[in-house]
Structures are given as structure tokens and as C-alpha cells.
């Protein structure tokens, strides 16, 4: 562990690398209906592990409503047959379908979560993402009206980090592709502020890096130079890049503030362990400002997923290598102050919070070849309550003991979200 962290520290401080990613209820697309009450389920997009269960990637549905008998239990496990480096997922704009991607095979799986939220069904696979778009490694799935934006982490030609994003309609037909601009060719996340007609994108690295064993990658100085150090401001309506901002250290997840008058967003830089704010200036352009430090950068805790509360005051930041979450007061968005720290496990990647900020869920997996590097390879979903001052554990599921795999991205589901399902006693046509 110490050796790995020292190695990371050296390269991280000099370069810019990035890792995981995410989404939760307060950080979804502005075009998505939000689930603001008690969620009944957490859908966990899970990497398969060779020799564990069926070894395949799967969508795991976990009961999370304390009022139900399935609280803290696995409600459903839907295997897709094969390993794809399951990573991120996102709802369509009607919240009826969950699109989920594999960073290695670039296959996209579409699950119907609207017909019966307790039992998702695999209804479509998109297997020609590389051929149609030129990109590979579908990462962020971000709904806009009638469509899905999908970032690629890499490209099909040289598998470097030079990439772009694609726009599909909800039926799975490609509408267009957009290349990242010159000088900011790396891609990762993208997020829209509809009030400002602005989209932000961040940057990571290509397939040649993210699929390598981490210790091997860290020993390759040339490879370690090939990470993103920029964010791009776009005119979203025109899909036109307007500005490239320097954000060293691989800026990953982007979280726009939700307040309509709050014209800023946050991101974390993985290798430099810094929090950044991207602020709209009075002339309408944007500036990137370092607003805080995450742990001890010399120890490279490796910040991964972040989650912003709906009042824009509290930011949760997971750090992979020490398995901890740090909570920052970002009431003053230009000066983030750490107010709490809690060790979740041996490693932690994703964090998702409920709309009211009272419930938080954490998962452990980052990438198959990076998990367990220098520390025990615990694989879990852990649930907590947050009272504004501390986390209190409520339940945990050991994904290895349950023979499920490596849990990654989480999304919330609710019975009756689109009217009561049949079991609750529907349905009379008028």
C-alpha cells in the first residue's frame, strides 16, 4: 500500500491522471424527473469477476426502503452474460430505461426499469458504438429531451484518450457525434446547466491506460503523461466548444450547483487531490479556481466520486486509496472547508445521496485492474444516514460473499414512480 501510494504520489503530482465516476439524485441531468421521496431500490451496475458466481457483469437491485421487507436485501440480479468492464449508467429522460456501458467492450445495455422497478429487464444491447461513433469506452450516460448523451473515454483507432461524445435518440439510433476540441482532446464526464445554456466536460485517459494493471501503468512514465488536464465550456444548444480551462490532475466528476442563481460547478482532480470550482464571470465567460485540498496530496488519496447536496452547501468526496469519504462545507464555493471524515472500507469509489441528503450509499469498485491495489479488495454496497454532522451505518452487502462481483455505479428506483405497478393494484383504462 505504502509503496503504491508513494509511486502514485510522484506521478500524480507531476502529471494528471483520473479514475472512477458517478451520479446520484442531486446530481442528475436537469431534464430528468427526480425521485425526491424515499427510494425503494438502488440499482447497482456491477462488474463480473472470473470464478465468482456466473462471472458476468450484472445489474443488481437492492431493496433500500426501511418500510419494506426487502430492506437491505438483494431483490434481483440480472446477468448480461460476459464481462465488459461495467462502469457507469444513466436513465433516459423519462426515467423508464437505464442505459449502462462497458468500458472494455464498449457494449451498451438498455434495461427497462419502468415496467417493474423491482425486476429490471434487459431489452436492448447496442454493440456497434465503436463502429458508429469512432469512440470506445462509453462512460457518462446523460439524458436530454428524447436523447442520451454518451461520452467516450477513448477512440477506436489508437485507443488513446483522444475522444468525443455521441448523441443517441431514446430508441438507440445515433443522432450525431461531437469531437473534443483541439488542445483538449481527452474526455470523461459532461454536465449541463440549462439556465446558462452551458455544458462542462472533463478529461481522463484512454483504453490503453485504464485497462492496464495499475502497478504496471504507474511504472510507465510515458503512459502516465497521457491523461487529461482540462475542462471545456460548451454552448450546449449549438454543441460548440467555447473555452478550454486548465485543470491539472485529471478532473473527473462534474457537479453543477442546483440553485438557479448559483452559476458554478465543482470537480475533483484525481492526481493532485484538489477541489476545483468553475465559475461564471460577469462577462459570461468561465474561470477554473482551486477551492480546496482533499486529504494529504502527498499521500495521493485519489479522489474519485463527488456528490453535492441539493442546497449546494455540502460536498461529499470519496477517496479510493484510503477508503474514506470527506465532507466539505462549500457554502462559500470559492473556499471549501472539510467538516467531517469517515472511513467507509478498504477502498471506496462511488457515492450517491438521496434528494433530501439524509441517505447515502457507497460502493467500492473503481476498475477491475485497479481494485485492491495496495489494500484488501473489499467489494461492498454500504448504506448510511447523514444527520448533517455524521454518518451512521444502516446496512451493508458484501458483493464478494454474495458472489455478485465489483459494485460500481448506483441509481435509485421507486415503485409507483410512473403510476402504480400491477402488483399494487392498478389499472383501469378510462
Amino acid at each position: 500500500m505504502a509503496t503504491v501510494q508513494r509511486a502514485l504520489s510522484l506521478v500524480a503530482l507531476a502529471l494528471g491522471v483520473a479514475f472512477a465516476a458517478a451520479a446520484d439524485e442531486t446530481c442528475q441531468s436537469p431534464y430528468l424527473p427526480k425521485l425526491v421521496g424515499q427510494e425503494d431500490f438502488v440499482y447497482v451496475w456491477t462488474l463480473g469477476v472470473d470464478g465468482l458466481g456466473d462471472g458476468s457483469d450484472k445489474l443488481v437491485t437492492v431493496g433500500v426502503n426501511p418500510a419494506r421487507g426487502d430492506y437491505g436485501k438483494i431483490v434481483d440480479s440480472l446477468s448480461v452474460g460476459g464481462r465488459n468492464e461495467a462502469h457507469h449508467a444513466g436513465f433516459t429522460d423519462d426515467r423508464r430505461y437505464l442505459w449502462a456501458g462497458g468500458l472494455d467492450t464498449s457494449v451498451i445495455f438498455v434495461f427497462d426499469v419502468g415496467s417493474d422497478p423491482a425486476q429490471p429487464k434487459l431489452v436492448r444491447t447496442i454493440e456497434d458504438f465503436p463502429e458508429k461513433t469512432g469512440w470506445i469506452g462509453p462512460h457518462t450516460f446523460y439524458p436530454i429531451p428524447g436523447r442520451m448523451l454518451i461520452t467516450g473515454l477513448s477512440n477506436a483507432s489508437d485507443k488513446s484518450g483522444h475522444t468525443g461524445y455521441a448523441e443517441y435518440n431514446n430508441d438507440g439510433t445515433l443522432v450525431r457525434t461531437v469531437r473534443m476540441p483541439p488542445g483538449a482532446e481527452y474526455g470523461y464526464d459532461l454536465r449541463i446547466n440549462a439556465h446558462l445554456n452551458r455544458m462542462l466536460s472533463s478529461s481522463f485517459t484512454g483504453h490503453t491506460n485504464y485497462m492496464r494493471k495499475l502497478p504496471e501503468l504507474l511504472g510507465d512514465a510515458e503512459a502516465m503523461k497521457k491523461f487529461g488536464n482540462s475542462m471545456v465550456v460548451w454552448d450546449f444548444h449549438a454543441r460548440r466548444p467555447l473555452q478550454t480551462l486548465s485543470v491539472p490532475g485529471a478532473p473527473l466528476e462534474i457537479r453543477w450547483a442546483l440553485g438557479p442563481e448559483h452559476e458554478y460547478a465543482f470537480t475533483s482532480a484525481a492526481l493532485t487531490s484538489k477541489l476545483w470550482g468553475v465559475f461564471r464571470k460577469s462577462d459570461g465567460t468561465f474561470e477554473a479556481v482551486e477551492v480546496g485540498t482533499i486529504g494529504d496530496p502527498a499521500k495521493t488519496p485519489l479522489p474519485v466520486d463527488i456528490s453535492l447536496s441539493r442546497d449546494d452547501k455540502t460536498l461529499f468526496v470519496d477517496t479510493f486509496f484510503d477508503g474514506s469519504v470527506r465532507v466539505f462545507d462549500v457554502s462559500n464555493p470559492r473556499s471549501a472547508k472539510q467538516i467531517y471524515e469517515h472511513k467507509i472500507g478498504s477502498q471506496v469509489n462511488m457515492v450517491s445521496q438521496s434528494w433530501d441528503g439524509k441517505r447515502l450509499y457507497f460502493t467500492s469498485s473503481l476498475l477491475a485492474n485497479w481494485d485492491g491495489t495496495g489494500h484488501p479488495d473489499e467489494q461492498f454496497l454500504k448504506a448510511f444516514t447523514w444527520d448533517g454532522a455524521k454518518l451512521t451505518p444502516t446496512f451493508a452487502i458484501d458483493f464478494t460473499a454474495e458472489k455478485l462481483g465489483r459494485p460500481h455505479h448506483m441509481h435509485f428506483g421507486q415503485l409507483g414512480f410512473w403510476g402504480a405497478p400491477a402488483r399494487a393494484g392498478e389499472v383501469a383504462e378510462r
Partner: protein
Amino acid sequence: MKHRSRARTRRALGPCACAALLAFGWTPVRADAHDRVTHAPPAEAPPRFEAPAAGSYELPAIDRVGQHQLLGTRGVAEPLIALKDGELALISFVYLQCGEACPLSTAMLRRLDGELAKDPALARRVELVTVSFDPQRDTPTQMRALREKLEPKGRWRFLTAANEAALRPVLADFGQDAVWIPGEDNAPDSLRHVLKVFVVDANGAVRQIYSTGFLDTRLVLADLRTLLPSAR
């Protein structure tokens, strides 16, 4: 392949666990907000960005919809898309007892109607179409009354369906959600749906879909002029 299931209009008789919904364009309550639109349309929020210039960007076809027969304000069947080549329709789904999102889209169409009146070359090639989600209550007579209140300056048709069975394939084709939510007496009361306004050309190609965040008259006009370069 369409997501046919997503457009089913249902009546849920169980408890409305989803009072907990929130979104741009979410319509959880009923009111007489359409009357407010007809009397004093809400002003558009001051712009916080400069709209891109018409023709400086592309609007590729997003999807394709078919032709559907609905009822006009005189109760006579009319095609949903009634365009010549080189014309566009803005199609909005509303219901008259809708409290929030529908009046918002109707107000935007009313503002757009006013703006189009200032540009006859563009106005001749654009039709606004308001379609009811609620054929039982929003009869042709009700839709005619709405039209009379709004006093369109240009091409603006108001359509409804003979019944929900006739409406269902239209919603499915557009990928427009709609779910009836029961009221206190457990009878269908409000319609939950994500607000969408569609720009469709004469061939049925969907060229733009607006939700609340995009309901900016400047953006709509820029899109229309982008798609109709000869009208710029």
C-alpha cells in the same frame, strides 16, 4: 424500434407514492393556469446567455414520426402533421386542467406566435399545433374555446382525440409519457408527464425536442431559422 410501453396512458388506483417527483417540466397539480396564460402570459425570464446565431449550428434528425388523424376544433378529423415541403410544425402536448408545465409551453407558443407575426416570411412556413392529452375532458369544443382565448396571430391548430385509444399511438410515436394520477376520490385527476415540445418537418423528421430548460423563444426562433435557411 420504439419504446411503445412508455407512452401508455394509465390510471393508477394505488397510492401515489410518487408525490415525490420533481423535474423541469413535471406536472403534478391541476389548476386553471391555462386561463392565466390566455389573459396574461408569463414573461420570459431575462436571458443569461446569448442565443447562438441561426445557421451557425446543425440540427440533425432525432427521430421520425408517422401521420396520425386527430380531431380539430369542429370535431372533424384532421392530420396531425399538415405541412408542405419546406415547412415546420411545433407540436406541444397539453391538457387544459394542467397546473404548471402545460401552461408554460402554451405561454411559450403564444409568445412565439407573436414573434412569428413580426416575420411573415418565417410565419408562413411554421405551424403551431397544440394537442390534448385528455380527450375525455378536452373536447373539440373545449379546444376551440382555448383557441378563441389565445387569439392566434398565425397558423396555430388545436387538436384532440376521439378517445384515449386513438391518442395512445400518437404518444407512443412521439415518445411522450403520460400517466394519470388519482385524486382524493381515487379517480384520475392529474396527468404526470415530462414537458416536451417537438419540431417536426413535412417528412415527419423530428428536428428538435424542447423541455422546460429549452423553452426560450430566442432558441426556438434560431432553430426555426436554422432549419429554414431561405426564411432567414
